[in-house]
């Protein structure tokens, strides 16, 4: 909608956000919902991108999320240290219809606290609430799985059945845990879009933007964006090669 004010790129802050969570909880779907929302309906992101980028406007600031998917490397506990490096935000996803996925989410939170930047903003997202909300429109329960990417284990959603009985993780329980662990908390549906954008805007509010701006300008980046923040002597390899490729043809 809003045309990007041409000067805003100067002020935009790049934020690396990593996704974590058990296979098939809908990590990729949440990102797809967020990134390829109605604004570019014909532009389905390709399966398996290095990472997806999405701008998020917050009052006078623009955050540019660089969203990293696990690419399936979490499956056999083989995520590289590189994955966590400089991440300023993380979304840990579980499936409200699968109790074990919350337990898994808790171990990911611990892993983040061990491996990642100590100031990382973590959000916990209970996905697939469309399967448990009473008013769930009974249309195409498989659509979410279709949106999922190749990294996901194929659909094991408990299709059909009584919506209420599908819920295995009470909202209260997860919320209490999130509060205790100092996490943002959401229940989401990548399928309907409920709660998805909120995750990213709420994270944006908690990111210490001024600090990042100050530190990147000062040439020091203690755990700052992995992106193009030019640090003294730092080199961006694409710089001399990206020329001539126009970014967007719309």
């Amino acid at each position: 909608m809003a045309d990007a004010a041409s000067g805003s790129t100067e002020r935009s802050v790049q934020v690396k956000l990593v996704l974590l969570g058990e296979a098939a909880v809908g990590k990729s779907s949440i990102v797809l919902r967020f990134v390829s929302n109605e604004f570019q309906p014909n532009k389905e992101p390709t399966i398996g991108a290095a990472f997806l980028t999405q701008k998020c406007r917050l009052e006078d600031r623009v955050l540019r999320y660089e969203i990293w998917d696990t690419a399936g490397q979490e499956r056999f506990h083989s995520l590289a240290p590189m994955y966590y490096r400089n991440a300023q935000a993380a979304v840990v996803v579980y499936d409200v219809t699968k109790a074990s996925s919350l337990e898994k989410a808790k171990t990911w939170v611990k892993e983040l606290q061990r491996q990642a930047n100590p100031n990382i903003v973590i959000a916990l997202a209970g996905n697939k609430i469309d399967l448990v909300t009473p008013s769930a429109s009974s249309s195409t329960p498989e659509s979410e799985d279709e949106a999922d990417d190749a990294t996901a284990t194929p659909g094991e959603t408990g299709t059909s059945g009584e919506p209420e009985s599908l819920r295995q993780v009470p909202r209260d329980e997860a919320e209490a845990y999130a509060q205790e662990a100092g996490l943002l908390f959401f229940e989401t549906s990548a399928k309907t879009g409920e709660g998805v954008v909120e995750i990213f805007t709420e994270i944006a509010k908690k990111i210490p933007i001024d600090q990042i701006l100050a530190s990147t300008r000062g040439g020091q980046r203690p755990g700052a964006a992995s992106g193009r923040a030019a640090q003294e002597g730092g080199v961006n390899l694409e710089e001399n090669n990206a020329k001539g490729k126009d970014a967007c043809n719309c």
Partner: protein
Amino acid sequence: MDFDVVVLGTGLSESVAAAALSKAGYKVAHVDTNQYYGGDEASLTVEELAEWADARASDDPSSDYLANQRARYTSITRSQTIPPQSRQYSVSLAPSIVPSIGPHIDSLIASGVSRYGQFKLLEKVAVYDRPGYVQSVPGSKEDVFKSKALSLLDKRRLMRFLMFAAGDFEGKKELEGKEQTPFVQYLQDVFSLKDQATSAIAYALAFCTSAEEPTLPAMQRIRQYLRSAGRYGASPFLVGHYGGLGETAQGFCRTSAVKGGTYILGRRVVSVESSPDDSTKDEKSTSTSHSYSVKLIDFDERLTAKVLVSSPDYVPTSLGGNTSTSKQSAYAVARCVAIIDKPLVFTPSEVPEDTPSTDTDGPTDGPEDEPSEKPEPPSYDVDTALLVFPPGCLQNGSTTTAVHALVTGEGSMSAPRGRYIVNISLSLSESTLSSSAEELLRPYLEAALSLTAPPSSSSVTSPATSLFSLFYIHHTPAAVSSAPPSSSSSVIVTPPSRPHLPTIADEATEHAEAMFWTAVKQLKAAGVQRTVPKEEAEEGDASVEKAGTEDTSPDIDSFWPPLDAVEDETSDEW
């Protein structure tokens, strides 16, 4: 679990090959027995490094892999205390400086892996002179102009050499017939260069390890480096953040994963077998496509594939990979990793032999600051730099071999603030193999530390303390003597890369490309269809035609396919 290719080991070559195979549309499983990525090129925290060393120093080989590793890493000694903030260090097992132009950088960009990592220019290369002092290296025309140490005559000779080295010298009369001449002698004979200049060129520009190295390869390296200068900055070399190649390997692995590769780390390989359905063991039998089966510990399903790519340390002798793991090593390098708490200060020791600033007739492009200003600061704190010790420069050091010490600090994200990693390497010849790594390298570490208490500073300063040190000898297996496996029946074993600072990244990448093509050939011979991503087929007009007319996947025509639209995406507006 069925795959097209199983790759064993996540060293740089295997990781690059895995990324390329996944991008080409093959189904790849990538396995490492270690908990970390990078194999012999890994970047480790200090704690991990200590564990790594202890596992190789102990004499209880708990696996074939470790037994092989133990044969290749010997004479290991380390200090006992692990410094605090261990996790903030990235110590490279294979320190490297990457030329800005070359196969490695090409692959980083073409594969899109470059966006995962960052690099820093190598700030400085200097030659050790005497305790507290270095000589700067005339690595460019500008340096030569600025140098106060060189006489006008020497400057002219050096300029002539640099011009020659940057050009197409093959077949020129200056070089003809002298391609195999020892390089130092060549520089003296043909370009009349003096000792100090020849030593700087041979050891700090061409990165020779001895005076005996032949001229042609040395000249080719210098040309590559001279041409690399200016692409990203004044220095021809890049140093990867977070420990260099280990981080880069992770980037290639992620790229493979993004394209569907399956990653399994930290699981010991129990067995690697040719699958039983293979009727004959005769490797010459045509068109019998082999099938491999890999059993991992605590992993119920075997991994099966038509093609096996493997680091030498994983290949069982039964599968014929052992030629490269035989005990005789082609190269051995004594290494020292030390963590110190003060920066090295490069204080030039140049004594002008000629009236300075007489060279104003030379340069035309920067006259305003020529006459009065000092061209260089008297001393220079370095964060990411290379210190070169020519043969014979230390009394108790090697008289025949040059030693290279790479220093990396906070600027390359490999150490916390105020801490520096010194990575010293000394190529070994037969005669030195009897000494321990620590005996060989301790003098060099002391000499490097002498630079941390600069003589220029007015107050008496004490040199840096070594907070941690590790010494070892790294043996590189001899290259596979036979021709690379061309039949469709062999395990593709990673050829060893010479563990040499400026060449290892390029060599490992070249090996990866060679393995990639061999694997593609074998996969084709085995009738494996690759999955061509839709986007690739729809991308250009040409490929649409191909995809439309043929049922089979189009031939692979490049190591790296064009980057996907989304991979190339940089500006989503919202």
